């Protein structure tokens, strides 16, 4: 979650409380129940496109909670969750790892800036990217034990963003920051994708993305974000100015995973700030682009969900689905339901007061159907779709009855709201979700 706002003064908090109180009163009256608390009218056909089978689905849902000062990792065990079950309370292992798990004078065990890597590790292990400490932490979700911790700092604040597994002996890591004092060790320049031997922590190779982005303003950071590895490595580039006060149009870099050679850099103008990428189907990718927060009046027009055809030798963007004007720019949170539909979150704002909103978006028609609003602006963070159980999980910070919302996609395409789950009762709300 980036550039989040919360109500800036108690008047707004009181306003929220008043709204909540009115909702409670309305809920007691027949016919006044908020429809987002029951079956949502929005519907679509062909939910998830797979035959539900919880046994084949993810077993563990990792939730990173935080407030950008501290972070906490909790694990939800989905073993007992059947298809369509959004009411039972799954087993939970709260705060298995957090910023204070190890006491240290010079660094937190987990910094306040932690995300999940899009890495498919053996034994359903989860991989956390501790961006603040420039370290990767492999976690056994069964025990909560830290299996491995590897630094990718090369002695500077390299700000890693994501990790994908090329093979058991090689992880590919995107690092967003540039080292102003590079040269003291190999592969320490930053703004790159590096190949890492996780067992030794040694860096094996590096793709310099700054050099790969030609024809742009001098000094721009390529700023690689989340990645997807298929037959090639796809890396969205956020294209920041060195002082982070502005952004150029977004790019998508295509690399050969074996030698990290940049094959192609695809321009995505006028879209900016693409920060997430997912596989829709083999040969089709989805980019979530927020637009530039440094250009607030133009951000909405710069934000889009972009479908990229990666089936050919020269991948191309084939469809843009703009941000909903009545919502806001797309957040980084998108979850692919099937070949046609994705769930996505639009960002709210404080001025004017506008909540975040969960949408169902058709990648075929571009239709955007609202599902549910957050209780307060910038409340939603973390989204995961579980095709095998036909449900969508959504994190909502500052929610007292549970920070993980669940939505059931029925066989007829209806959407029902389930009982929320508290990943870390009484603790920091969820910002990131990842399932394995």
């Amino acid at each position, binding site marked *: 979650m980036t550039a989040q706002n919360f109500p800036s003064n108690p008047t707004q908090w009181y306003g929220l409380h008043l709204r909540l109180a009115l909702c409670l009163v309305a809920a007691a009256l027949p016919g006044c129940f908020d429809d987002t608390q029951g079956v949502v009218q929005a519907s679509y056909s062909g939910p998830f496109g797979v035959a539900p089978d919880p046994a084949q689905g993810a077993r563990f849902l990792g939730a990173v909670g935080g407030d950008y000062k501290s972070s906490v990792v909790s694990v939800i065990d989905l073993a007992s969750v059947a298809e369509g079950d959004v009411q039972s309370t799954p087993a939970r292992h709260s705060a298995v790892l957090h910023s204070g798990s190890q006491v240290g004078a010079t660094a937190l065990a987990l910094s306040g800036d932690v995300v999940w890597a899009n890495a498919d590790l053996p034994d359903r292990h989860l991989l956390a990217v501790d961006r603040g400490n420039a370290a990767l932490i492999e976690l056994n979700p069964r025990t909560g034990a830290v299996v491995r911790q590897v630094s990718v700092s090369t002695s500077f604040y390299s700000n890693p963003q994501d990790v994908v597994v090329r093979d058991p002996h090689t992880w590919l890591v995107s690092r967003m920051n540039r080292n102003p004092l590079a040269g003291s060790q190999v592969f320490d320049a930053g703004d790159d994708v590096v190949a890492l031997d996780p067992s030794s922590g040694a860096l094996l190779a590096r793709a310099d993305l700054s050099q790969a982005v030609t024809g742009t303003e001098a000094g721009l950071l390529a700023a690689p974000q989340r990645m997807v590895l298929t037959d090639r490595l796809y890396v969205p580039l956020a294209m920041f100015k060195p002082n982070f006060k502005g952004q150029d149009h977004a790019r998508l870099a295509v690399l050969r995973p074996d030698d990290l050679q940049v094959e192609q850099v695809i321009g995505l103008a006028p879209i900016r700030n693409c920060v997430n990428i997912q596989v829709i189907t083999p040969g089709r990718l989805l980019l979530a682009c927020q637009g530039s927060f440094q250009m607030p009046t133009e951000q909405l027009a710069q934000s889009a969900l972009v479908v990229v055809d990666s089936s050919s030798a020269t991948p191309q963007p084939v469809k843009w689905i703009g941000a909903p004007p009545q919502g806001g720019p797309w957040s980084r949170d998108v979850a692919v339901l099937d070949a046609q539909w994705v769930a996505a979150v639009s960002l709210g704002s404080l001025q004017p007061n506008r909540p975040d909103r969960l949408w169902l978006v058709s990648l075929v028609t571009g239709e955007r159907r609202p599902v549910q609003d957050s209780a307060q602006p910038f409340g939603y963070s973390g989204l995961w779709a579980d095709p095998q159980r036909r449900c969508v999980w959504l994190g909502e910070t500052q929610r007292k009855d549970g920070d993980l919302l669940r939505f059931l996609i029925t066989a007829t395409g209806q959407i029902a709201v389930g009982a929320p789950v508290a990943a870390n009762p*009484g603790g920091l709300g969820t910002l990131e979700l990842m399932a394995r």
Partner: protein
Amino acid sequence: MVALSAAQPAVASEDGAVVLPGKRVKGKRPVGKGAELDGGQAVTVVTGQELREHHAELAEALAQLPGAQVLRTGGVGSPALLSLRGSTVEQVAILLGDAVLDLADGAPLDLSDVPLLGVDRVEIYRGLAPLQVGSQPLGGTLRLTLRRGAGSSAQATAAMGSYGTHQGEVGASVGGEWGDGYAGLRWLESTGNFPYLARGGTAYVRSDDHMRTRANNDLHRLGGVLSLQGRWSPDSAWTVHWLGSGLEQGAPGAAVFPALHARYSQNRQILVATASRDHLGRLDARAELAIHAVGRWSEVEDTLGEMGFPWRATQRMLGGGAAGLLRVPLVDRDDRQLTLHGRVGAQATQIQGAELLSHTDRPASLRQSGQASLGALGRLGAWQATWSGGGELAHQQVTDLRQYASSYSQPRQDTLPAWHTALALRWQPQDHWLVDAALRRALRLPNLQEMFGDSATVIGNPQLLSETASSAELGALGKTRMGPIAVTGELRGHATWAENLIQLVGLGPHQAMYQNVGQARLLGAEATLAADWNGLRGELRHTTLVTRDQSGRVGYDGKVLPMRPRTRWGGLARWQTDLGSWRSSLWASLDWQAGAFVDAANLVVTPARTLAAAGIRLSTSQPSIFVDLRVDNVTNAAVYDLIGYPLAGRTLWLQLGWHADAGTP
């Protein structure tokens, strides 16, 4: 309680009354050391002589006081900020002499700016503020009084310590028919290159841990004080005080990724002028006028972007104000007194910043504020009552919107009204003990930094409301003699309910915004016990602070407020004796502090710590020279106030001093 004379020192007579020039104020002297201002209760006074004899820095001296906490990020000379009774540093009011400084730019007083040689006394008012302050700050009040001229004399000290630390101070007094004055200069430099255990960002990997030297942690300070005072007539007096400080230092950043080239510099100049007149009219009133001006310039330079991204930002601040105080003794008898205090003040402060790399001028923001307060102090027999109440009005605005493009801070012109009141009672049936109690409503207006101070990572919030707090306290002081041993003690308890606390709320990994989100409860106790016997002195100090976040926010509600240790104990033993023509003072101290949470979510703990120090001072009176040798952090414990900012280990400090007195003209 004694009245304050700005012109000449008060003298305590044998009967306990205090004799002021042209005025004799009768009353019982408070148990222990008395404060100079009216109406405060939980007061600790540290004289300049005590500071110079027993401490290397003002910050180190204040950190030992009950109810006080000093936050630091480095070694000797590094910036040090004062918190009282669990307050934030912004919730402490600062007085230089008799002038309340309006630090509306949000840059609190750095205790390391104060040269010890130029200090006459420091008064710490925990909780209830004196009537002269004209407000009720949430945490308390720090009053700094500069050294007065006393005849013709000169002093000089030279010191050196661990981690490349050197300091020199000089001062001189002159006196004449015009009045007297003192001027002093202090220079300090330190490389700050102490060792620490670097663990990188990998707390779970020990193989990459190694000892490292704190780099780019050097600092250079140059500062001075000037104190002039005189009389126009037997009833009227004037003073001029100047406190100037310049700091240039490395900005080493968090130890996990230290910055090797980033720099920070600040220059702050404070000028205060006061005029007073006694015996005004038939009411025999006293009037004071205090004018202050504050200028500050600071620059942060990280052109390489070692701490995230390249930036170089400057901020200029210029402020000033005037306050008038009228003190009217309506009743002045031996057995009863009633004095009214009225205070009216007005201030204006402007700050403006610029980002030099992108040539972006940030908007200037301006605050004009005023306050009026009324207070009464009455004494009847053993009882003393104090009441005060008043209001503040602040108008702030952004004055230059040309480059203002923040998507978050919508500028607004607004007026913030706020009010405060306090009621205090003191019962002193005998000279050697008393009991007091107080109720008050305190406040703090958001400063310009919090409202408009957009920076690289922090966003101002013009919608902020004033912080307020309701508090109650109860205290007792006593002194007694047990044979040859003189014992003094103080015990206090306090409770505070604070609302609308202004906190930085994270909006993203590198962005935070000031918001009124906090409600909190703070309960505390402070105790001091001291005994003196034949040159031997022992002190025992205790502070308890129990805090709870009551904001109702998920993840924070019910948690302990960060960086507020629940318990602190301190002890001091000092033995003074004469060795021929030399006088020696041997001392040792021990301070224990409970572990504390660093974060509001109560996930990260700084462990409990014990700091031991010891030293010896040898001095002669003719000629007046002294030698100090002290060792701080004797056990070389690894300590820190903030995660990522290790503090120095064992530190040696050797100081030589010289004093020459040419006599009083």
